[in-house]
């Protein structure tokens, strides 16, 4: 673990800045316990949650101290397995006390020796306990991490009717364990990285060796190493850092809170990126074909799952095109609407002061504001938003003659459709694109819509997710992957991994090797 000596750098800076201050500390471990304690204290700025417990060892006349941060550690563990052991068990005089304590006395599995001040302070900040012995330069670091964490709950952003109920939590160890519980394959790999120059968070790249194409793993590793930020509050930072094109409205890595989703994606030859401190795990590479898939597709029977998927495609179509089609038809191509409908739309629009485009933008923006407000508000007040949105904006705007009733229908249908897109990040990108379509429709009618559509397609075919074309498996076409694309074939037919990910092992060994493309 080659860690840049951050603390020493910090110290140097501080020294320069606070040259007037008399207090200064050394980053060297000395044999003198008091010096060491003083150094640590000053290095961390003497925080209130730093616990220093000085003690005498057994019957010996030897001073020692343990240091930890309360809240990050499991204090029972420290009391029972460290303090008690040291105070009670150590009675004989020993020449090499520290080794003795390390090997025999302390009842904690993970103990390390260190004599580097940076390592020690880092370990303390990570919830470890440091043991200092007077007259000794070797310090023991004991893994006593603990403290309050959130328990495993049902994921809030992706609820399913049927399927496992557990969701990831903020602790990366728990998350790794959740994946391990699903996949008991010895080839499951957790490659550890560290992100956050100052936050020093753990980041784990997870894949199954022998399935995932090594090119993907290598590429993701390479990109992860380029990350250079202070603090990663969520995996989305990582996502934005390693994605292929930051101009794209499409998510090139998928996020999920569901261990079952991660496991099944790992089994398909993808990689997962876990970041400490967030329940959202990233999955890569993803393609446009996956955008409308949900884990629930696999828990339903295949016919209903297929129909549901098609429904989602329809909903996606509505979410993207409906308001723009409304604008184009009403303002540019009234001949396309059946005569009777034309007249009734015209009748309802009689007296609406705005052109259809303005009307649509007004409603769309109002809806986005409602949506945003609904997310911010606490759940209790959240219902108010529904009332405000439904009654005030809908009813009142119509009766005040600001928008036409048909526009309210269009907005409502669009809104519902965009919520039926399973992945939130995909839904967000659809929301963005919807506005592009609306603008184009307002300017050039259907012609504008198709030009934007073509442009989006051009963008998609040039986009890649970790080197995999984003438009796969549609184009380049992988006909074998069509089994689980728009339709979801019966599980018994889904014996192969997606070929567009070029997995090393395509699962069913009896089948003859794939012929050259």
């Amino acid at each position, binding site marked *: 673990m080659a860690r840049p000596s951050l603390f020493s750098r910090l110290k140097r800076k501080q020294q320069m800045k606070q040259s007037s201050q008399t207090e200064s500390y050394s980053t060297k471990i000395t044999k003198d316990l008091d010096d060491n304690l003083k150094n640590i204290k000053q290095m961390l700025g003497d925080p209130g949650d730093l616990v220093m417990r000085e003690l005498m060892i057994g019957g010996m006349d030897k001073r020692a101290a343990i240091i930890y941060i309360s809240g990050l550690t499991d204090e029972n563990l420290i009391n029972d397995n460290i303090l008690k052991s040291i105070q009670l068990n150590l009675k004989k005089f020993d020449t090499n006390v520290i080794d003795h304590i390390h090997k025999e006395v302390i009842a904690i599995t993970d103990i390390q020796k260190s004599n580097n001040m940076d390592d020690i302070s880092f370990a303390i900040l990570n919830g470890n306990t440091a043991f200092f012995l007077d007259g000794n330069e070797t310090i023991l670091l004991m893994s006593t991490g603990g403290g309050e964490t959130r328990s495993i709950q049902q994921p809030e952003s992706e609820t399913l009717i049927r399927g496992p109920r557990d969701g990831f939590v903020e602790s990366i160890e728990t998350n790794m364990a959740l994946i391990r519980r699903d996949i008991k394959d010895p080839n499951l790999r957790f490659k550890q990285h560290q992100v956050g120059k100052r936050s020093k968070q753990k980041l784990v790249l997870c894949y199954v060796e022998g399935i995932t194409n090594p090119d993907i793993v290598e590429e993701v590793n390479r990109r992860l190493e380029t990350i250079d930020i202070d603090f990663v509050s969520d995996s989305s930072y990582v996502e934005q850092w390693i994605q292929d094109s930051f101009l794209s409205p499409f998510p090139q890595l998928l996020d999920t809170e569901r261990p079952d989703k991660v496991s099944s994606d790992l089994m398909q030859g993808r990689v997962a990126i876990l970041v400490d401190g967030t329940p959202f795990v990233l999955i890569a590479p993803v393609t446009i074909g996956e955008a409308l898939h949900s884990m629930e597709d696999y828990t339903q029977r295949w016919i209903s799952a297929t129909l549901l998927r098609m429904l989602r495609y329809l909903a996606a179509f509505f979410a993207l095109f409906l308001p723009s089609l409304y604008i184009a038809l*009403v303002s540019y191509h009234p001949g396309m609407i059946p005569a009777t409908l*034309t007249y009734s739309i*015209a009748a309802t629009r009689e007296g609406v002061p705005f052109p259809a485009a303005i009307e649509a933008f007004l409603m769309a923006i109002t809806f986005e504001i409602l949506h945003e407000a609904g997310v911010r508000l606490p759940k209790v007040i959240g219902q108010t938003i529904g009332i405000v949105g439904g009654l005030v904006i809908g009813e009142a705007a119509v009766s005040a003659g600001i928008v036409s009733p048909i526009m309210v229908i269009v907005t409502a249908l669009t809104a519902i459709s965009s919520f039926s897109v399973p992945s939130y990040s995909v839904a967000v990108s659809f929301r963005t694109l919807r506005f592009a379509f609306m603008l184009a429709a*307002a300017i050039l009618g259907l012609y504008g819509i198709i030009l934007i559509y073509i442009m989006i397609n051009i963008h998609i075919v040039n986009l890649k997710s970790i080197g995999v074309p984003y438009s796969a498996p549609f184009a380049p076409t992988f006909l074998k992957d069509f089994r689980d694309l728009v339709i979801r074939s019966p599980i018994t037919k889904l014996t192969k991994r997606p070929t567009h990910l070029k997995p090393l092992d395509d699962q069913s060994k009896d089948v003859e090797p794939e012929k050259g493309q």
Partner: protein
Amino acid sequence: MGRNKVFLHLVFVLLLFLLTGCWDDVELEDRAFISGVSIDLAEEQGENTTFELMEQLVVPSGLGSTTEAGGGKAYRNLSQTGESLYEINSAISRQANRDITIDHVELVIISQDLARQDGLFNDVIDVFIRQQQMRRGILLAIAEEKAKDLLSIETEHAKIPAQYISELTENRQVPITTSPVRIGDIQESMLNNRSFVVPLLSIYKDNSVNYKGLAIFQGKSSKMVGTLLGKEAKGFNYVLGKEQQGSVTTKVEGDQTTFILAGGTSKIKLLNKDKDQLRFQVDIDVDARLTEYFGELDFYSKGVKEKFKTTLEDKVKKDAEDALKKLKDELQVDAFQFDIFLRSHHYNLWKEVKDDWDHGKNYFSKSDITVQVNANILEPGNSFRVKKKEGEE
């Protein structure tokens, strides 16, 4: 390259939006949709033929919605006279406060007077075919009197007269109807110099439209040459083998009987190849159901059924022959389009006669057409008697 690309993306998106404007944007509520057009000859004629064009504009607010009834009239008729239809149209749009939109024209009514003039009818049709927003599916009808009067008839069922009339021409229960005549079909017929029929409408006294019969157009001159009314129109449809719906009333042993036709077909056969005396045979098949019968015969005995059958056959045959007589001998116009049959099945013969089919030498009128009818009575109705036979107890 990377930077460059980013820049490109941005430039294109921006250009797309900035360089454009909304030239064709006309809001729905700013448009006036024409639902029907009527064309008459103007009362005062100038040097060239002067038309009187009336456009029926829909007033959406008058239509009301599903929840609330609309108030006021649902249409607005605007008319102008002039020599060019397009110019009249522009004159009308000067009258209207909205953009006149022709996308939803359903119906064109042309007055008989105009249709009977030489060379005017195809001028009128040309306007409708050439206009891009017009559909080929616009229905066409001929008005016996003034065409514009038809567009003022308001009924309780339809708030827009044009809609009322177009629904009327599409109603298949009327026995004398031809299938709705679309402008596109007319163009096809006129291009091939084929004669054709168009629904003929007139006005009842009580302010509703009467589907009176069929107007016959000769293909070559493309003008109206005559009419088929009532039974003749029925007979016309028998020969055509299309739209054989509606009722037939006849007498079986002195008792009035009405049949409902449930459809049927006709088949044309050419019996010889002598172009100066072509002999056609038309086999007509009709299926019928009994709807009204005031007599007392028992349907389930074989002879009786036979009796009904022959009566029906005779009746159909007579109507068909009447229609044939009128068209072939009197008007000498092949609105049946026998020439399509010749063209499809006797191509070489057709090539010889096509230039003088129902005009010039008029091979059509020289031909001899016989009719054979085969009727099939499908069912006698749900319950076949209201009153017991006398004497039966």
